[in-house]
């Protein structure tokens, strides 16, 4: 390349950068979002935290859908109105669907008829992250199984690997199917996989997950499973609880009181 041309490109590039910087200063709306560092000051020690949830199915009754509505609104989950292309982060399943290997013979009929909240289990040994060929889905330092929507190639291996049916794929552009756009979480594009993220965007602000926060019956408890003094650990110690398909060795972080 010609020396003069190279010089010119260099200067033009610097000029453009300076211009962008100035524009960002002049027009605050153009600037990249500021990170509120105080959010990270109480950052838990990596590898020591394991977020978990406890769902009391005795309290979670009836047709209440507060948590589902709130989660799907806050996370811009589209509604396609049919089961084939359905995208869902948290939903209700029949008792026998959620716990297909649990004993059902002569079980209390009231229990068998319960609708159980199902969501990503944020497994300690997640089969989905192992199957992902690009590290687009990965386990975070705090035990949350997360997805990088910008890296996902849409091979859907994680969906085949997940033994809980917790993952959804965007078979079509989700944006036209979002009922009411929320600015609390980014929308996704067509061709990538998504699922519950344990509200990591709320946890970083010190808030509880949207489902826990919105439950009118206080049926959901959330906390650090690795902290023996946490409320969730006390509840786990005091109650008989279940995980979904424990025989698979995935070590789910979502527990159920039946």
């Amino acid at each position: 390349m010609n020396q003069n041309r190279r010089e010119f490109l260099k200067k033009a590039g610097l000029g453009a950068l300076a211009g962008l910087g100035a524009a960002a200063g002049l027009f605050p709306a153009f600037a990249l979002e500021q990170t509120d560092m105080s959010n990270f000051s109480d950052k838990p020690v990596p590898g020591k935290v394991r977020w978990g949830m406890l769902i009391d199915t005795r309290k979670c009754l009836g047709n209440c859908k507060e948590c589902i509505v709130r989660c799907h609104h806050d996370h811009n989950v589209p509604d396609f109105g049919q089961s084939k292309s359905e995208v869902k982060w948290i939903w209700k399943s029949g008792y026998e669907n959620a716990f297909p290997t649990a004993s059902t013979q002569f079980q209390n009929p009231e229990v068998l008829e319960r609708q159980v909240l199902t969501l990503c289990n944020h497994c300690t040994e997640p089969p989905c992250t192992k199957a992902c060929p690009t590290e687009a889905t990965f386990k975070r330092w705090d035990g949350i199984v997360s997805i990088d929507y910008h890296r996902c190639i849409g091979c859907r291996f994680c969906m085949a690997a997940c033994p809980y049916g917790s993952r959804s794929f965007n078979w079509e552009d989700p944006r036209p199917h979002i009922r009411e756009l929320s600015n609390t979480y980014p929308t996704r594009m067509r061709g990538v996989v998504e699922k519950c993220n344990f509200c990591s965007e709320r946890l970083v602000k010190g808030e509880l997950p949207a489902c826990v926060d919105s439950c009118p019956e206080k049926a959901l408890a959330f906390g650090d499973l690795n902290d023996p003094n946490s409320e969730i650990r006390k509840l786990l110690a005091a109650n008989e609880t279940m995980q979904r398909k424990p025989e698979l060795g995935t070590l789910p972080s979502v527990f159920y009181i039946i």
Partner: protein
Amino acid sequence: MIEKALKGGRGYWTWVACLLMVIGLGVTAFARQMTIGLGVTGMGRDISWGVYIAQFTFLVGVAASAVMLVLPYYLHNQKAFSKIVIVGEFLAVSAALMCMLFILADMGRPDRVLNVMLYPSPHSMVFWDVMVLNGYLLLNLISGWAVLGAERKGVAPAPWVKALIYISIPWAFSIHTVTAFLFAGLPGRHLWLTAVLAPRFLASAFAAGTAILILLTFILKKVAKFDAGQEPRLKLAVLSSYAGLANLFFLGTEFFTAFYSNIPAHKHSLQYLFFGLEGHAPLVPFMWFSLITGIISVGVLLSPPLRRKNGALIAACIGIVVSIWIDKGMGLVFGGFVPTPLEAIVDYMPTATEISVTLGIWAIGLLVLTILLKTAIAVKTQK
């Protein structure tokens, strides 16, 4: 050398034109899929893989079966195969190419395919599959092309070609083993979660792949006046029959383990495929057709007087290919998703768009195979 594929009669060009038309159909359908998304297929939240991954699985087997010619010819000096080793290698090239195209067609974001290389993940079986498939395609293309080039000049192939050929032998086993591991390591999918899946994949691959090779020799004899001879065909028929027998045996062991142990989760997928589950039985006629055709075809190939009759040999080879295509190219992938992790029974039906893309990819593979074989036969019959 490739220029030899440009000289052909009316029949040759008609065939190429037909393939181009089907490719055009496939490209049009793929454009629709790229515009709207994978929602245009029959796949959905519950059956998240369909025809594309099923074809991929079947074709990896076809690619691997080239080893059924390469191994006896290069390791056991079976001279009978000298004329058709190249057919096997070029079949492997086109099958491996189709595999990659099917993976691409199945991806939600094909524009990001290079992420597999940018963020290599050895814990993911897909990463290994991409590596071994690309490697296998190159090994067969380079070694096949080099041997052919040497033959054209009337000299012995360069020594490095032999090395590539020897590497390609264990490599052929690896591609189908890794493909089986894509499925066999997933917890909660009981049809796939079986140690016998990789051996069964290899057996069905060698049965169907060699049957395709036999059929190719008949086609080449008819359309290109290139006769590989009766001897290699019969040898291949024996290989195909034993591989087919092993495949049926493995299927039998699956049935025994599932139904004798009586564990519901282990039985469900097989029940769905062969008997129907809770009123859902869309694949039952196909699976029984596959099983019965497979048994009869293997029987014909096993019988020396029957397999010597060209008509019976051709029918048995078609039978074995169709049988294994249904078993692997449909049942294995669709059936593995039923019941879903939440115990729902969901049926899958491919759409016209999906089938058009599938036909288009098959046509691309056939076109590549046609061009490669045309070149090979022109070189082999130049004297």
